[in-house]
């Protein structure tokens, strides 16, 4: 089930109303759990068995970790990690590895033929795997008590608003909230619905509209002028941000309505003044996951400058491959890692306003955005060769004929709503109106804008594929 569908709208209304009609937290847990199963099973029903498997493994691993001392704890943790990563690697990376290693294997063992499984990826697999991993690691570290209630733990992994595209939550933030009975709160409902409306606006009006430019330019790349390629690349930067952060807004809003707070996933990333800062603002739940569970265990910045940079580099490579089993994602991660670690000038640039005034800050923001946009090209391109061809096309300076796939009116609208969105994002601190009248007007306006100006269909969110 995708958020931008009528199915979700009806589902959300039913679940939320039912949630507040229930007077016991236990019943609410079961309602949310069963709803989440229904939500997940709308993709490929049988894949829920994979989730059940990892849930059971991690639940019992958590219990065992709490009861065990010494070396056995490490063994249990390793078992849990192996089970989770095993599922992830099997479904997501098996075919990638088999096709990548096939030439080598063929050279060494001519008779060996690794099968190509062509498996469909369980939706949101990388997200809920990482969320599940954070639970067992935190229990192992002693930062989190093992959850005794299987239903609560299952809900932690399967909670429908963030099940398929995050934010990747931590047990410390979620498990306590699931145990607490939260009475109906009109302020939460208002804030949640406004946040959802904003997410729908970003997805339906901005992301899906600029997606038409992106698809057109990428599909006809070889016939496009440099100017069109530049526009296409910028449009993809806008699309991926609005698509993914729009999903996060809807997830956070839907959860807020029920009084359950999810972590923020974005903080105006295109306002960053350097790549390192960009990564502190983009997909925060993933960046912090890698920081806490990979970068710090590798030694973080405690083992000298070279080791620190190596650690950062490893994190970026894995972060790239987390997104997908394709060399494009690997390259994207490698270049990000390279730029952050090798060019310290791009790293940790402090407040530009303090150092060099607004104009310097503006230059830094522009430079960072340009760099990020160029690297998104490899994220979007189907192959590395296509990515390089796209970049070469930009720098061939081949004319200025603009072909966006949209007519002038719609192209101008796309620019207008994109600018409006970024300006609003930079200014809005909280999605809340004290006045009920203002709230109702905003919701009516959002519904009408999304319906009449939105690209209504069943377009999926980009991050669903991860």
């Amino acid at each position: 089930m995708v958020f931008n569908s009528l199915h979700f709208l009806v589902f959300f209304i039913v679940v939320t109303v039912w949630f507040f009609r229930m007077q016991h937290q236990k019943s609410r847990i079961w309602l949310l759990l069963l709803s989440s199963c229904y939500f997940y099973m709308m993709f490929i029903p049988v894949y829920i068995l994979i989730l059940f498997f990892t849930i059971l493994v991690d639940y019992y691993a958590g219990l065992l970790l709490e009861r065990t001392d010494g070396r056995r704890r490490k063994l249990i943790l390793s078992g849990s990690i192996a089970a989770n990563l095993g599922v992830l690697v099997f479904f997501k990376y098996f075919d990638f590895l088999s096709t990548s290693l096939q030439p080598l294997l063929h050279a060494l063992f001519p008779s060996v033929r690794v099968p190509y499984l062509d498996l469909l990826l369980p939706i949101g697999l990388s997200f809920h795997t990482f969320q599940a991993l954070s639970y067992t690691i935190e229990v192992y570290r002693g930062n989190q008590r093992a959850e005794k209630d299987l239903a609560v733990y299952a809900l932690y992994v399967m909670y429908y608003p963030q099940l398929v595209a995050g934010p990747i939550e931590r047990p410390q933030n979620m498990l306590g909230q699931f145990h607490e009975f939260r009475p109906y709160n009109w302020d939460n409902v208002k804030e949640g619905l406004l946040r959802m409306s904003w997410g729908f606006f970003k997805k339906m009006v901005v992301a899906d509209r600029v997606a038409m430019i992106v698809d057109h330019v990428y599909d006809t790349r070889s016939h496009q002028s440099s100017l069109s390629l530049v526009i296409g690349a910028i449009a993809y930067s806008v699309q991926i941000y609005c698509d993914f952060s729009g999903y996060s807004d809807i997830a956070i809003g839907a959860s807020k309505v029920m009084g359950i707070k999810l972590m923020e996933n974005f903080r105006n990333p295109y306002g960053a003044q350097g790549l390192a800062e960009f990564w502190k603002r983009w997909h925060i739940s993933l960046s912090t996951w890698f920081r806490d569970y990979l970068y710090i265990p590798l030694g973080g910045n405690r083992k000298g400058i070279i080791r620190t940079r190596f650690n950062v580099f490893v994190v970026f490579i894995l972060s790239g491959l987390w997104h997908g089993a394709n060399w494009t994602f690997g390259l994207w991660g490698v270049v990000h890692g390279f730029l952050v670690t090798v060019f310290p000038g791009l790293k940790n640039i402090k407040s530009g306003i303090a150092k060099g005034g607004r104009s310097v800050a503006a230059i830094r923001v522009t430079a960072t955005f340009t760099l990020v946009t160029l690297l998104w090209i490899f994220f979007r391109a189907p192959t590395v060769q296509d990515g390089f061809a796209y970049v070469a096309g930009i720098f061939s300076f081949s004319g200025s004929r603009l072909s966006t796939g949209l007519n002038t009116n719609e192209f101008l609208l796309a620019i207008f709503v994109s600018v409006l969105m970024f300006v609003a994002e930079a200014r809005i601190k909280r999605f809340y109106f004290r006045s009920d009248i203002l709230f109702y007007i905003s919701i009516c306006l959002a519904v009408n804008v999304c319906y009449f100006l939105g690209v209504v269909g069943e377009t999926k969110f980009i991050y669903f594929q991860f």
Partner: protein
Amino acid sequence: MRKFKSICANTVLVVGLAVLLAASSKWFVFAVWNWHNVHGGDRKWYMIYHSSWGDLVSQSNLDNEKMYLERKNYTYDRPVGCGKGHVALYILGDSYTRDIPDSVFCNISSLEKSRVTQAFPFKPKAGKKNVLIIEMTERYVREVLHVTTDFSSPPPPRRFAASGGDGVKSYAAFTNRNLEYLLFHFNFLNPVRTAKASFVLKVFGRGSGNTVLSKDTKYLFFRSTVAPNGRFSSYSIVTDAEVEFCVRKMNFIYDHFKANGYDEIYFSFIPSPATILQPGGYNGLIPRIQQNPMLKVKVFDVFSVFSSSPNPDIFYRKGDTHWSNHGMHIWIDMVNSELVRY
């Protein structure tokens, strides 16, 4: 006030659950659909049948745009000089041939039809000349013939395609469409839908939903048939290996049915409207298959007739993926010219 809120909440809950449950039930939705087709308005659900203004008009809600409105005008008169005969005709086809009755075919004793994407339920009749026509619209050719990617051993054509290669997302899409149908299939809501579609057409110059305007804006096309990529498209790249595979698969299917007692087997590919009406950039799928020297199956070559016509507009309806009455009769005449030989 509290009691009123409680009643409202319970009502929303019960109605919402009922709607979710009903939308998940194929049986229920089809029952409502049948009721609507009898008692409802002009618009038809899904695109299983040709709607009276055209399936693309329905899908894009462009009911107010006169330039795309062209009523279904199929006539099924018995051809002059046609009589009953001893040919048992079987058509494994799609929506193009679904409604064609047996009365238009010459020299036949029976006509049996099945969808090309489903299992073939018939057995050849003893003492009859058994003639099988496998008809499919161009956008399904690659999908239907590519059940497997294994180029060396095509599977038997028991089922040509499991679910159009799209079975995975179909349940969610099915439920979503059902919900839309159950909640919003009311005539009083049509003005909102048509207003949006007309707004998009006039201000943004494009179609809505799954439709795309032709370059000269005179026709509506099904989006996937004009996409730069994808197996349904007339413009996506078709490799020689793919063409060869289709040909080998057709030969394989021919042999299969021959071995099972059919006397004659014909294929027929109906070109997508975009292929004929907007031929620039066409990938040449149909002619490349039909002209392949390896092909040993007889083909009703509608493509050549349509594409060589100086006035190709007459073969398709403006707001529909299907052919016009004229286009259909060209195909029927081709079939009859073969049937009268037996």
